[in-house]
C-alpha cells in the first residue's frame, strides 16, 4: 500500500468508522476515569473511612498515584507495546482493562463488610484505570492520524480531542440523572454503583466496534518494510534526535495545555463550589452547559489548525487564557457575591433545630437563615454547633456553611464565563493530537507522543487543584495573620492567588512554544 494518502485514496466511509470507533472507546475511558473523581466523596465514605489511618493513606495514594504517577507509566508501557505489536491491539487491551476495573469498583463490598481489603482493591483498580488511560489516548490519536489524509489531520484527530470533555460531561449527566431518579439515602446505599456498572455495557459495545477495524496502514507498512524498532523506549528517550522533541512537546505544548485544560474545567468547578459557594447541582449544571456549548469548537479549532497551523491556534489560546484568567475569575466571584446584590425587604427567614447526637450526650443546634435577593439569588447560612452536656467540657466551635443559589441572570453569566474558558481549552487541546503525531516517526510515534501528553496533563495539569488551593489558602492565612496583628492585608483578592500556577506554567510554555515550536505542518509519512 502506498504510504502517501491523498484525499482521493482515503475511503471516506472507512475513515468515519475509524474515527467513530476510536473516539467512542476513548470517550468511554475518560467517562470511566472521571466517575471515580466525581463520586470521590461517596467512595471515601464507603471505602476510605477517615478515622482509619491506613485507609486514609490508601485514599491519598488512590487520588495522587492514579492521576500523576501511573498515567505516564501507562503511556510508556502501552506506547512501547503499540510501537511493537500495533496500535489496534494495544488500545483494545487498554479498553478492556479500563472496563474491567470500572465495573469491578462498582461491585466491591464496602469497608464495613470486608474491612481493609475493600480500600486495597479499590486502590489497585484505580491504578489499573490510570495505566489504561495512559495507554489509550496515544493509541487512538495515532491510529486516527495514520488513517487521515494530509491537510485534514487536525480536523480528523480533533474528534478524539472532544472525548475528554465529553467524558466529563457524560459522567456529570449520569451521576445527576442517577441522583435524581432515587432518594439521597438510596443513592448513598447502592445508587452510586450504577455509573460504574453501566460502563461495562459501553465498553462491550466499543470492543465489538473496534474488533473489526484494520491495523493502521502506516504501521502495517513499517512492519512490512522491517522498520519496527526493537526497543522503542531506547529509541525515543535514549537518542538526542528524538528526545529533544519529546522535551519540546512537553515544555512547549502539553505543559501549558494541561494547565489550561484543568483550569477551564476542574478548577472552575472547584472555584464555583468552594470559593463562590454555589450549590452542588447548580455549579454542575453551569459546567455541563458550558461543556455542551464548547465541545463543537474542538472540531473547529482542529480544522482551523489545518488551515493556519497548529502553533498559531494553540499559542493564541494559551496567551488569551493567561491574560484573562484573573478578570474572568473576579467576575465569577462577583456574580455569586450576595453583598453586591439587593436584598428583598422582609425576606429573612430563620429556623432553629435541635437534635440529640445518637449514642452521645451532645446536642446539635442548627440555625438556618435564608435570604432572598432582587435578582432571584438566594443565600442559605447554616450554623451548626454542638453543645456538650458534660460539665466542664468546652463547647465546640460552630461550623458555618454558606450556600448560594444564583438568580437566572447570574446563572447565564457564569455559564458564559466558564464557556470562555472552555473555548481556550478547545484552542489549545483541539489541534494537539495532530501536533504531537507530526513530531515523531511511525516507529516510535505511540511511545514518544504518549509520554509528554500524560506528563503535561497528568502531572502539570493534575497538580493544579492541589497547588492552586494551597496558594489561595496561604494568601487567606497571611491576610488573617495581618488582620490579627493590626496590619494592612498583603493580598487584596486572596481567592485569585491560586491562578498564578496556571498563569506561570502557561506563560513559560507560551514562550518556549513561541521560540522553539515549528509553525509549519509536517508530513507524517516517514
Amino acid at each position, binding site marked *: 500500500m502506498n504510504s502517501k494518502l491523498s484525499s482521493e485514496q482515503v475511503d471516506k466511509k472507512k475513515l468515519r468508522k475509524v474515527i467513530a470507533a476510536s473516539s467512542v472507546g476513548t470517550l468511554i475511558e475518560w467517562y470511566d476515569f472521571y466517575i471515580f473523581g466525581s463520586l470521590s466523596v461517596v467512595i471515601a465514605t464507603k471505602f476510605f473511612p477517615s478515622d482509619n489511618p491506613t485507609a486514609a*493513606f490508601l485514599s491519598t495514594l488512590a487520588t*495522587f498515584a492514579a492521576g500523576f*504517577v501511573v498515567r505516564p507509566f501507562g503511556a510508556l508501557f502501552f506506547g512501547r507495546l503499540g510501537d511493537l505489536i500495533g496500535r489496534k491491539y494495544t488500545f483494545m487491551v487498554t479498553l478492556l482493562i479500563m472496563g474491567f476495573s470500572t465495573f469491578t469498583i462498582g461491585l466491591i463490598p464496602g469497608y464495613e463488610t470486608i474491612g481493609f481489603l475493600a480500600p486495597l482493591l479499590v486502590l489497585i483498580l484505580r491504578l489499573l484505570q490510570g495505566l489504561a488511560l495512559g495507554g489509550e489516548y496515544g493509541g487512538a490519536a495515532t491510529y486516527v492520524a495514520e488513517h487521515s489524509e494530509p491537510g485534514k489531520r487536525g480536523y480528523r484527530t480533533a474528534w478524539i480531542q472532544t472525548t475528554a470533555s465529553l467524558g466529563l460531561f457524560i459522567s456529570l449527566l449520569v451521576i445527576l440523572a442517577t441522583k435524581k431518579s432515587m432518594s439521597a439515602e438510596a443513592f448513598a446505599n447502592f445508587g452510586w454503583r450504577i455509573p460504574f456498572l453501566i460502563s461495562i455495557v459501553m465498553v462491550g459495545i466499543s470492543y465489538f466496534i473496534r474488533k473489526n477495524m484494520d491495523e493502521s496502514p502506516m504501521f502495517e507498512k513499517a512492519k512490512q518494510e522491517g522498520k519496527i524498532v526493537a526497543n522503542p523506549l531506547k529509541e525515543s528517550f535514549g537518542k*538526542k534526535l528524538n528526545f529533544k522533541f519529546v*522535551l519540546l512537546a*512537553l*515544555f512547549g505544548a502539553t505543559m501549558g495545555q494541561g494547565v489550561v485544560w484543568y483550569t477551564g474545567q476542574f478548577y472552575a468547578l472547584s472555584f464555583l463550589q468552594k470559593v463562590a459557594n454555589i450549590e452542588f447541582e447548580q455549579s454542575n449544571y453551569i459546567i455541563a452547559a458550558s461543556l455542551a456549548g464548547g465541545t463543537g469548537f474542538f472540531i473547529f479549532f482542529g480544522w482551523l489548525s489545518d488551515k493556519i497551523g497548529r502553533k498559531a491556534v494553540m499559542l493564541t489560546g494559551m496567551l488569551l487564557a493567561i491574560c484573562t484568567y484573573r478578570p474572568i475569575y473576579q467576575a465569577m466571584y462577583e456574580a455569586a457575591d450576595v453583598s453586591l446584590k439587593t436584598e428583598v425587604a422582609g425576606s429573612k427567614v430563620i429556623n432553629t433545630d435541635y437534635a440529640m447526637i445518637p449514642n452521645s450526650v451532645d446536642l446539635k443546634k442548627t440555625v438556618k437563615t435564608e435570604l432572598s435577593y432582587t435578582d432571584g439569588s438566594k443565600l442559605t447560612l447554616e450554623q451548626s454547633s454542638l453543645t456538650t452536656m458534660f460539665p466542664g467540657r468546652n463547647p465546640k466551635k460552630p461550623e458555618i456553611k454558606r450556600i448560594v443559589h444564583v438568580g437566572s441572570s447570574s446563572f447565564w453569566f457564569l455559564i458564559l464565563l466558564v464557556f470562555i474558558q472552555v473555548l481556550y481549552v478547545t484552542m489549545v487541546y483541539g489541534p494537539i493530537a495532530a501536533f504531537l503525531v507530526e513530531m515523531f516517526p511511525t516507529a516510535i510515534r505511540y511511545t514518544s507522543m504518549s509520554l509528554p501528553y500524560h*506528563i503535561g496533563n497528568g*502531572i502539570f495539569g493534575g497538580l493544579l487543584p492541589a497547588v492552586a488551593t494551597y496558594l489561595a489558602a496561604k494568601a487567606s492565612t497571611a491576610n488573617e495573620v495581618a488582620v490579627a496583628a493590626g496590619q494592612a492585608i498583603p493580598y487584596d483578592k486572596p481567592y485569585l492567588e491560586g491562578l498564578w500556577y496556571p498563569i506561570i506554567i502557561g506563560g513559560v510554555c507560551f514562550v*518556549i512554544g513561541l521560540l522553539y515550536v515549528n509553525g509549519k505542518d509536517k508530513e507524517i509519512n516517514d
Partner: protein
Amino acid sequence: MMNALRQIFGIVWILLGLAAGYFLVFEQSLKLFEKGGMDNIVPAIIYTFILAPLLTGGMCVFGVYALQNEYKSID
C-alpha cells in the same frame, strides 16, 4: 537572530529548572515532611521524587540542548 535568541534562552531554562527544583524540595517538600501525616507525606514524596527531578532534569537538559543550538534546524 532567532537561533541566537533560542540559544541565549537556554540559560534561562537551566536556571528556571534549578529554581523550580529548589522551590519544590526546600520550600515545599521539607516543610510537608516536617508537618507529618499521610496527607502531607504523599504530596512531599511526589514533589521530591517525581516533580522536582522531572522539572529540574527536564528543563536543564532542554536548556542544554537549546544552548547547543539543537533546535535551530526545525525551521
